[in-house]
């Protein structure tokens, strides 16, 4: 209960701070954000878009790990956890794609222009889509669980290839290499605090949703088992 109240207040503060704090060229006090050259107010998306993409990746990895756990132990609970994580990952993936596309319209002039980041999130969407298409076409529970786990492992292993391949084909306009050319985070302290608390907040929301849905699916599964008896 306390966790939920703290999370609610925290995320409200993050949203207010992310949207309402003024951006000035020389921030002197803690409630002012620096101007990001070339992006201005559009830079505020970092507080909401990056956490959704982050949660999307976290969810994918969670789903993968539970999938491996299922293959090792053959416990149906792990499959429930794996599919729950994948479902949430799909949701956050869509959120990240849509927020990114809207931002891209106002910054680069088009909703979609196959920037490397857009390509990689598109592939992630495709993998999630294929994963659910596969699941819906297998009726036997154990078979569905092990095949979808195998598929997500294979799909997960092809993802690193994009890191090597995409830079060979196109260069990115994504602000990440522009804001952090050395790969280090050097943001203004206020920005960093808002960003990190948004990241934590979104991860906590994901964790909460994950637990809720796992509980729900477990109950549903037990109900089905009873009906079968």
């Amino acid at each position, binding site marked *: 209960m306390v966790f939920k109240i703290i999370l609610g207040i925290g995320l409200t503060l993050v949203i207010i701070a992310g949207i309402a704090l003024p951006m000035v060229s020389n921030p002197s006090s803690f409630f002012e954000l620096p101007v990001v050259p070339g992006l201005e107010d559009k830079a505020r998306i970092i507080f909401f878009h990056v956490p959704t993409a982050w949660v999307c990746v976290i969810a994918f990895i969670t789903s993968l790990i539970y999938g491996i756990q299922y293959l090792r132990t053959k416990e149906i609970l792990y499959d429930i956890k794996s599919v729950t994580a994948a479902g949430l990952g799909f949701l956050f993936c869509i959120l990240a794609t849509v927020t990114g596309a809207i931002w891209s319209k106002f910054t680069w002039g088009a909703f979609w222009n196959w920037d490397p980041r857009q390509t990689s999130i598109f592939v992630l969407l495709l993998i999630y889509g294929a994963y659910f298409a596969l699941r819906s076409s297998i009726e036997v529970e154990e078979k569905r669980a092990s095949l979808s786990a195998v598929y997500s492992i294979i799909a997960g292993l*092809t993802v690193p290839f994009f890191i090597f391949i995409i830079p060979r084909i196109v260069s990115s306009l994504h602000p990440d290499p522009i804001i952090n050319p050395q790969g280090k985070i050097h943001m203004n302290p206020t920005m960093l605090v808002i960003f990190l608390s948004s990241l934590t907040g979104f991860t906590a929301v994901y964790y909460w949703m994950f637990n809720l849905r796992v509980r729900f699916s477990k109950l549903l599964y037990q109900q089905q088992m009873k009906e079968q008896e």
Partner: protein
Amino acid sequence: MNKIFNINSALTIFIKDFRSELRTRYALNALIMFVITTLAIILFAVANETPSIEISAGILWIVIFFSAMSGMARTFVSEEERGTVMTLHLIAKPSTVFFGKLLFNLILLFLMNIFTVVLYLILIPSFIIKSYDIFLLTIFLGTIGLSAASTIIAAIIAKSNTKGTLYPVLSFPILLPLLMIVIKSTKSALEGIEIAKAMGDFQVMIAYFVVITAVSYLLFDYVWKD
């Protein structure tokens, strides 16, 4: 050695598949007709235009991808349909079955790709290869990568209800990195780049094949056993 897999049994499974293919010619006929139809549609669509290097390199791999998708799906589905899965379970280890099927897919895809490329070279006059070494290596490495990934996906979809439609859907995200790199490499073959500059691309293709084959080998047990 016994633990890993038996090369002779894998060869036996390959020969069995090859013989049954020669008798029915199901996949071969379907593949040849598929390639011809697709190329005819492309020729009608292109009509009198000369497609640029980028477009003709891309189209070649679109033809290869979808032809592979229409032919490779049969490898495991046919076993399910004929009801011979149980027999294979009894007589061979999962890894043996996997490598036998992989070999069969490899040969089938090689034949198909040679046919496609020859036809493509004849029919599309603007498709002129300037560095043959890059082109041949790309076709070779692209084919082995494609067959490795399509074999394990074929094994997965053989157990599902919607076999044919699901196959390209599941394969595309897995094959996308390979397709991107082979299209780029084909483009450099058309542009006539020296082979030394294309080495990085080949390394990625080899790595892709090795990773996919290793993972398929490790995971095939879970797919194959009921």
